[in-house]
């Protein structure tokens, strides 16, 4: 087993553990903190299914962002939709017998890679060009976009410029999952690609990428507007009544 394979195998185990445990820990923090008051941004749904629909529109169509900024919406949409397809396309690396839907989206996954890159460029330009967005940006905000862009770029380069032995890559990941490691091809682009992905996984729970789980815990979006009908009270507030 090459040194490289061992390093990357361990790296991905660690990254996965940090990602899962880190997000799990954040989610438990969010879940544990009560929302003592009813604060949905109204008009809000008056039923649970209504709230599910509101969150669905928010997560899938970025409804509020659309109201707020059309350009940011467009670039975010390109990026996130691209990313979603690309991720689905990558599922084939983790399955012995690839599901039919995953096989079917393979060709679209490639275009999605370009959409993703385009979206990121747009978001980056906005960050630089709009004075208000520039003001609120920290170095990490730029670096995050650059990191994602480089991941996309190295991925696209492997598809269109220097091919990698994808069968071997698949064997490597299937090996990781079954704890029977097989060697990772020592291709430069592949190494860069995987290294950046691992970094992304590791910083996820410590960064603004927490917006992904965060949206589901946002009281202004996930609460039912029924305060007159149902009494809502947090445990710590209940104690005040005794």
């Amino acid at each position, binding site marked *: 087993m090459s040194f490289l394979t061992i390093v990357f195998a361990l790296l991905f185990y660690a990254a996965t553990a940090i990602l899962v445990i880190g997000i799990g820990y954040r989610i438990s923090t969010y879940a544990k*903190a009560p929302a003592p008051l*009813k*604060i949905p941004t109204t008009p809000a749904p008056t039923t649970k299914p209504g709230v599910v629909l509101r969150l669905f529109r928010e997560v899938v169509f970025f409804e*509020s962002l659309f109201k707020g900024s059309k350009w940011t919406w467009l670039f975010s949409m390109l990026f996130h939709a691209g990313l979603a397809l690309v991720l689905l396309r990558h599922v084939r690396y983790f399955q012995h017998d690839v599901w039919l839907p995953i096989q079917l989206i393979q060709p679209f996954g490639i275009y999605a890679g370009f959409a993703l890159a385009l979206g990121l460029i747009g978001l980056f330009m906005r960050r630089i060009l709009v004075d208000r967005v520039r003001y609120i940006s920290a170095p990490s905000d730029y670096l995050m976009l650059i990191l994602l862009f480089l991941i996309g770029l190295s991925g696209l380069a492997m598809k269109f410029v220097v091919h990698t032995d994808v069968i071997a890559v698949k064997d490597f990941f299937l090996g990781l999952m079954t704890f029977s490691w097989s060697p990772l091809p020592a291709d430069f682009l592949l190494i860069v690609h995987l290294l950046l992905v691992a970094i992304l996984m590791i*910083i996820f729970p*410590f960064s603004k990428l927490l917006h992904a789980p965060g949206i589901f815990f946002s009281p202004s979006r996930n609460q039912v507007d029924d305060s*007159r009908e149902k009494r809502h009270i947090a445990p710590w507030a209940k104690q005040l009544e005794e």
Partner: protein
Amino acid sequence: MAKADFEVPELKKHIEVPRVEEGTMAHLSPYVAKPDHQNGVGYPEELVENWHEKTLQAMDDVRKKYRSFQVYLDACVKCGSCTDKCHYFLGTGDPKNMPVGRQDLLRKVYRRYFTLPGKYFPKLVGAEDLTRETLDDWYSYYHQCSQCRRCSVFCPYGIDTAEISMAAREILDRVGYGQKYCNEIIAKVHKIGNNLGLPGPALLDTLEGLEEDVFDETGVEVKFPLDQEGADILLVTPSADFFAEPHVDGLMGYGKVFHEAGVSWTLSTTASEAANFGMFIGSYENMRRISLRVRQAAKELGVKRIVFGECGHAWRVAYSFLNTLAGPFDFLDPKYPVPQHICEFTYDLIRKGKLNLDKSANDEMVLTFHDSCNVARASRMGDQPGGQFTIPREVIKASCNHYVDMHHDTIHEKTFCCGGGGGLLTDDLMEIRVKGAKPRMTALQNVIQENGVTHMAAICAICKSQFSKMLPFYGMEMDQIVSVHQLVSNAIILTGQKTDEDAEENATEEA
């Protein structure tokens, strides 16, 4: 035009997004609470010596008690969608008045002390140490937020800067750095029963005066009862309704509506204030204490229903929080929601055809309606989402012949705050109030010029007071702001009321 020692913005045709200009509002802070104001609300008298430690402790406590605070501090991706949505930014160009800029004042400290990257790579993630200047910055800019929630409409995660502002004020209060205006008022409510410190006899006096006025005008004996046990309805209304124009005309309207509905109702001395400034300072305990007065009054007077008068933030606390803070209201008549808004009450009567409204009584006005921020984005009326927009408009339209809406980006959920909400309605914050009123004034001026609008109606005591002051700054008249129930009051023809024809007949008989 009103005088000012700062530049009053010039109104353009459109609401323009200004260029970022750092520090334009850094000089403005409200008066700091004195020791006895602080005492009255249960906070340290002055900035405590170990403020550094105490501030961080308070932050930690608040994030564990309020999910909103914790999630909002983490989730922001700095997308910029909210940056041009705050009326205070639009009026000043100060980036710390952009919603996310305002949140960042706290977020920087949160990151520094409560997150790993902030502890080890502060520069990278924009984390900053907590210093004495930080507190001043918080004090200044968290009192330049009216907690109107406009930003939360446009944020992809619903991040509500109002929540952050409330938390910040709570944290500042806990280290002894409170705002005079809010804390003095809250202490007054605890002690006397209303924000203005009006004692019972003064209220009685005013109400008797109103009874006379209505009688002189209509010849009908409409009662304005105070502390009447056994009445059906307890009316809780902002104390401004008792004496200031145009508020008091609204109160007359409520009285006439109750009279026509044939229900018995009463005001209460102990609950003679609808507003709940406890919310402005983010203090659950104070908000709860103030709310409990309403429960207590309802119990003591033995009423069956509670109705709130025209007040914006008050309606938020009433609609969204009252059940939580002072419920359950199982001792009231379960047929009615608790509480009800006076507009819901009036609208119901209109729908049932129980009010005789002569729209032509308001013919000298062309009206528009200002959606008050907290009614629009933090509450509801009726049983359908959005009833808070339709119901007041229906009440207005049933009372007048000429009604026009302002630009659609400035009404309903996208409405602009009047500029004086959230504990800012004080003279020491006049500059930000004037500048923050600019977007609303722009939209109003447009309908004045294009549609001949003469008056703007509102259902919030703060909005009404604020606009009475703001309109003159922008070259308009202070009486162009009216109460919704003032329009109802003008239009309503009471059963048995002497009409103009009667008056003429009388005149001929006498002659």
